């Protein structure tokens, strides 16, 4: 689907067009925020399947309620609130979808068995630390270090003071870095403080 010349449009303009049923405008909003929505959903659910459900359904809910978005320029923050609430509901109701597991071998770069083991252990450790983080820290570190949102963007879009964003990011990174550092130990299983 071509988005034509809409890519330069602001969120507000895309929202206004999507309200009129413009599929390209809505598609562009999805494209802009699909990763962030997934990251936020993942920060709540901690599971790929639920994060996928939460993010996808949130876009549909957002479209249905688009007229309630009082400030279209703040669409991202409004959407993330929907994603967060939707994902919490998913967790609360334990709506788990049966899906085919995605084979790790589908990756374009096939690592050696040793490297695969190392990456797997690292991922497990990282997953554990990520799960132990407060949800807001998980959300911020994923939006910042995974999606590349800047402090001010996160603060603006999530309605959190910029200093608080930096603070959360600092603690989240500190914990996650310890997991990354642990993988370089000889036994590869250093406990995470």
């Amino acid at each position: 689907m071509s988005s034509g010349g809409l890519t330069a449009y602001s969120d507000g303009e895309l929202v206004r067009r999507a309200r009129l049923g413009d599929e390209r405008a809505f598609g562009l909003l999805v494209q802009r925020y699909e990763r962030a929505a997934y990251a936020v959903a993942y920060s709540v659910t901690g599971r790929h399947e639920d994060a996928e459900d939460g993010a996808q359904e949130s876009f549909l809910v957002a479209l249905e309620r688009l007229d309630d978005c009082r400030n279209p320029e703040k669409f991202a923050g409004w959407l993330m609130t929907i994603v967060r609430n939707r994902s919490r509901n998913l967790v609360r109701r334990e709506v788990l979808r049966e899906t085919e597991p995605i084979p790790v071998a589908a990756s374009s770069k096939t690592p050696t068995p040793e490297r695969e083991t190392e990456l797997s252990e690292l991922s497990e450790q990282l997953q554990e630390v990520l799960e132990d983080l407060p949800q807001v820290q998980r959300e911020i570190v994923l939006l910042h270090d995974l999606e590349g949102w800047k402090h001010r963007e996160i603060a603006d879009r999530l309605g959190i003071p910029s200093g608080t964003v930096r603070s959360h990011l600092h603690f989240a990174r500190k914990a996650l870095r310890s997991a990354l550092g642990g993988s370089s130990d000889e036994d590869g299983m250093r406990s995470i403080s």
Partner: protein
Amino acid sequence: MSGPEELEPTASDELGRDMELSSALGRLVDPATRDANYWLRFRAWVLESAARELARRRRVVDLTVGDVLTAWSRALVPTAIAASLAAALLLFQGPPGPTDVAIGLEELLSEGLEEEIFPAALEAAEDDAVTFAMERF
């Protein structure tokens, strides 16, 4: 872990993402690391599911701009034309002519009646005799 506190931005914060951490998080979290077409399918699913709602919104817009105006015009335009014609007729009809106006009940009751039907007793007799009734057989 202690609670969040306000910190001054560090150099690494201002420089942006921690690339090593970003890469590790990407491997862990980003579905596209395992499936290159993941986001295309994600988007396709969302847009396919949203098609009905988008179509409904387009219909509402069409209804607002087109059908509603047409529907209104169907009722309003003939009414407006009829009203303007009636107004024009009234305007060009000219001033109304003089009309007889009844000024009292008696005049109203006797208006248009022939004089013969008045009681004969009211007529003056030729011989000055009082006649209460004049009956003719």
